[in-house]
C-alpha cells in the first residue's frame, strides 16, 4: 500500500542528477525534498509523476481498494511552476473544466468549485477571468484545482512560491487535511512548509556520470 519508489535514477545530458533513490510513503505520510537549485528536485518529481522516463528504477502506487500496482502519475495531482489555468477563461470555467476532465480517483471525492474556492480563501471571485488575478491569487486557485478532483497523491513543485504568510498557513492546513484523509504528499521546496512530522529528503545534485551506473 502506498507510493513505492525503488532505486530511481535520472539524468540530464550525460550527468546523473540522482541515483539509487528509494523511499516508501504510506497513506497519511508526506515527504519534502530540499536542496539547492539544480539539485534535481523538480526532475525527481517529474519522474514520479511519469512525465520523464527514469534512467533506472521504477515508481508504482498500490491502491487501498484493489491492491494492484499502477503508474503513480495516473492517481496524482501534479502542480508545477505553472498553474495550468487559462487567463482568458474565468476561474469557474477553469476549475470546472479540470473537475470534469480529471474526474475522481477511487477512494475519494472532490469538493465542489465553490467549496474549493472557500478553502483557499477566495470564495467571492470565481466569476472573474483568471488573467485579472494577482500572482498569489492565481497560485491559490491552482491549489484549489487539487481539491476539486480527488487524487490520493499530491506532487507539488514549489507550491508556496508567490504566496504570502497567510496563504502559507492556508496551504499548510490544506496539506494536513489531505494527509489526515489518508493522502500522500510529495513536495519540493526551499521554504519551510510549517508541517510537523514529515520526512525530509536532502538532494545533493550531481551523482556521477551515466558510465557509473553501467560500471
Amino acid at each position: 500500500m502506498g507510493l513505492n519508489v525503488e532505486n530511481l535514477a535520472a539524468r540530464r545530458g550525460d550527468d546523473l542528477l540522482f541515483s539509487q533513490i528509494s523511499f516508501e510513503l504510506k497513506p497519511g505520510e508526506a515527504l519534502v525534498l530540499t536542496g539547492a537549485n539544480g539539485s534535481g528536485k523538480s526532475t525527481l518529481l517529474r519522474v514520479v509523476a511519469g512525465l520523464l522516463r527514469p534512467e533506472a528504477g521504477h515508481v508504482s502506487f498500490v491502491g487501498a481498494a484493489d491492491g494492484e500496482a499502477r503508474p503513480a502519475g495516473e492517481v496524482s495531482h501534479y502542480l508545477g511552476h505553472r498553474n495550468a489555468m487559462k487567463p482568458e477563461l474565468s476561474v469557474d470555467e477553469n476549475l470546472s473544466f479540470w473537475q470534469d476532465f480529471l474526474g475522481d480517483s477511487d477512494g475519494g471525492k472532490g469538493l465542489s468549485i465553490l467549496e474549493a474556492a472557500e478553502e483557499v480563501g477566495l470564495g467571492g471571485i470565481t466569476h472573474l477571468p483568471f488573467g485579472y488575478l494577482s500572482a498569489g491569487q492565481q497560485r491559490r486557485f491552482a491549489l484549489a484545482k487539487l481539491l476539486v478532483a480527488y487524487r490520493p497523491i499530491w506532487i507539488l513543485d514549489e507550491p508556496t512560491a508567490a504566496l504570502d504568510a497567510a496563504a502559507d498557513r492556508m496551504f499548510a492546513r490544506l496539506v494536513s487535511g489531505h494527509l489526515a484523509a489518508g493522502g500522500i504528499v510529495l513536495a519540493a521546496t526551499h521554504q519551510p512548509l510549517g508541517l510537523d512530522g514529515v520526512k525530509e529528503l536532502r538532494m545533493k545534485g550531481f551523482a556521477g556520470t551515466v558510465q557509473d551506473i553501467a560500471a
Partner: protein
Amino acid sequence: MSTTSLVISKVTGLANPTRFLALAARMIPWMAVITVLLFAAGLYMSFASTSDYQQGYTVRIMYVHVPAAWLAMMCYSVMALSAIGTLVWRHPLADVSHKSAAPLGAAFTLISLITGSLWGKPMWGTWWVWDARLTSVFILFLMYLGIIALNRAMDDPGKAARVSAVLILVGFVNIPIIKFSVEWWNTLHQPASVMRMDGPTIDKAFLWPLLVMAIAFTMLFFTLHIAAMRNEILRRRVTAQRRLAARMAGRGEE
C-alpha cells in the same frame, strides 16, 4: 447633431466619459425616433418612385446601395478623425469612438458589397468583377476587419487604441482611391452622379428618395455609433470594477 461626439472630444478636450454617458442617454431615444421616421419616409419614397426604363425595378437597390457605400467611407473618415484625436490629444473618448465605429463601418461596407452584387447579377451578368471601385471597397472591408481583429487581440485598451489609430491613419489613403477610382480608371462601375462639381446628373425622381435615404442612413450611423460608444465605456467600467474586485478579494483575512 452629427458632430456632437467630435465637438466634445476636440473642442473642449475636457469632456469626461461620465458627461458623455449622460448626454448619450438623453440623445439616443430622440435620434432613434428621427432615424425611424426618416427610414419610413425614405423607404416609402423609394418604393413609390418610378422604375428605370433600362434597369426596371432593380434600380431600387440603389436606394440602399449608394447610402451604405457613402456611410462606409464616412465611417472611416470619422474613425480617422478620432484616430487623430487619440494620437494628438490622447483623449479617451476618441479611443472609444474609433474602436466602436469599426464594426459599424464593416457592416455598412458589407451591406454595400452585398447589395452591389445583387444588382450586378441581373445587370452585368455576374456577382462580382475585380474592377477598381469594387476591389478598393473590398479592401476597405478587409481593413475594417483587420482593425477589429487588432482591437480584439490586445488586452490593454489604451495601447490597442494607439496602435490601431496609426493603422487607421495609414489606411486612410484608400478612401480617396475609392472615391476617385471610377474616374482614374475605366471601370464597369458607373461614375459618380450625385456628388459632382457641376451638379447632379441623376433625374429628380431618383434624387429625392436617394437623399432622404442617405440622411436616414447617416442618422442610423450616428445613433448606433453613440450607442456603441456608450456600451464600450460601460464595458470598460465593468472591466475596471472586476479588476478592482480581484484586487480587493482576500484582503480581509490579513
